[in-house]
């Protein structure tokens, strides 16, 4: 028995806490037990790199209209049946053509292309944790900001450590129903809620995205409960994005989310007291604009990822002087 136990390791990064005998990989596909050590296969091995508008993350309350240097590695610790990036998130890293891009190169490229921030995105930054952390530290030293785009399925200790270097996060709250998390995403709701609260406590600028899937998580009751929880635990200033689903991966049988469902969700969120509520993946809708919670005038007028008008000056509404939640310069 002791011989068997000797080389078993338990990953403590995410709540799945995979127990691995030698020569086996974790559920995320990127951590392997080799010789009794847990080895990450994706440190500095980038499978996707782009310069995006920061609005694409979506981050609406930090440096609007700026480019963000965005990177990803293979793998994910969830397996959402609707994943938009499943070709890179649901495969082992050795099956992709990766580019060797250590933290120094990431930061250097971000600066060269005039990006004031770096996003760890597309797949799941939790599973390339060590790479995110080292890059984020170096980015900070070079005056750049760091943005996580995450499902928030991570244990408390590594998250608190990472938050020291993270400026903003868009965290998915995929549903307010644990059964949905377990059956559709292979995760667990309570861990995601914990991660949201921890990020708030650690001073990360937090935005939340809720992808609405027709028939699966689109009930008004669930939306209202979720909004109440956000107001109570994260604060009414927390930006909330209701995102439109398009058929993808293992959810090709569902139809795209009707716009009226998204608009109704936005109404509910505003009724519950949230101040900044957006509808996403519906280009051209006024529901993706930022409004002053005090005087109700338009603060930021958007069209897709473009900024058409910005009426926030020194972090305040140009019209009434209300302080607006976010990092604006």
């Amino acid at each position, binding site marked *: 028995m002791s011989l068997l136990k000797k080389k078993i390791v*338990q990953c403590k990064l995410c709540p799945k*806490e*995979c127990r691995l005998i030698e*020569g*086996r990989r974790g559920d995320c596909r990127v*951590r392997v037990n*080799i010789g009794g050590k847990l080895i990450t296969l*994706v440190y500095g091995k980038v499978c996707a790199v782009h310069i995006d508008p920061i609005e694409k993350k979506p981050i609406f309350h930090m440096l609007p209209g700026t480019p963000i240097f965005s990177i990803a590695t293979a793998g994910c610790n969830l397996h959402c049946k609707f994943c938009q990036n499943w070709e890179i998130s649901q495969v082992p890293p*050795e099956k992709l053509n990766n580019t060797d891009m250590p933290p120094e190169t990431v930061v250097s490229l971000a600066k060269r292309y005039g990006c004031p921030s770096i996003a760890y995105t597309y797949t799941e930054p939790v599973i390339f944790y060590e790479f995110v*952390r080292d890059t984020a530290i170096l980015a900070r030293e070079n005056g750049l900001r760091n943005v996580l785009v995450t499902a928030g399925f991570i244990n408390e200790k590594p998250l608190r450590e990472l938050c020291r270097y993270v400026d903003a996060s868009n965290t998915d709250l995929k549903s307010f129903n644990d059964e949905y998390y377990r059956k559709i995403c292979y995760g667990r709701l309570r861990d995601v809620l914990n991660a949201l609260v921890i990020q708030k406590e650690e001073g990360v600028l937090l935005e939340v995205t809720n992808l609405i899937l027709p028939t699966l998580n689109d009930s008004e009751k669930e939306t209202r409960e979720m909004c109440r929880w956000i107001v109570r635990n994260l604060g009414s200033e927390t930006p909330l994005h209701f995102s439109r689903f398009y058929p993808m991966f293992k959810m090709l049988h569902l139809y795209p989310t009707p716009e009226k469902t998204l608009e109704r969700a936005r109404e509910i969120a505003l009724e519950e007291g949230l101040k900044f509520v957006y509808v996403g993946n519906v280009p051209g809708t006024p529901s993706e604009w930022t409004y002053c919670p005090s005087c109700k005038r338009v603060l930021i007028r958007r069209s897709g990822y473009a900024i058409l008008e910005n009426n926030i000056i020194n972090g305040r509404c140009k019209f009434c002087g209300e302080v607006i939640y976010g990092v604006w310069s």
Partner: protein
Amino acid sequence: MNRKEFLGIIGGMWILGFFSAISQERFIEESSSGGERVDIDELKKKAEEGQVSMKEAMFYEPFEEKNRSM
């Protein structure tokens, strides 16, 4: 107890221990959230080609039976 009976008991205990070890390993494999077997030599080759890294992870520990996962 004669010699044959003694050897039979010892043999039986050895067989029980052997199957217990195998079933324990199987339990650990099946109860782990991950567990896909990898070809370590192939991974090392991929690492030499620059396709994957071989960096030690930050958050893990030797497995203890008292730590149960989800």
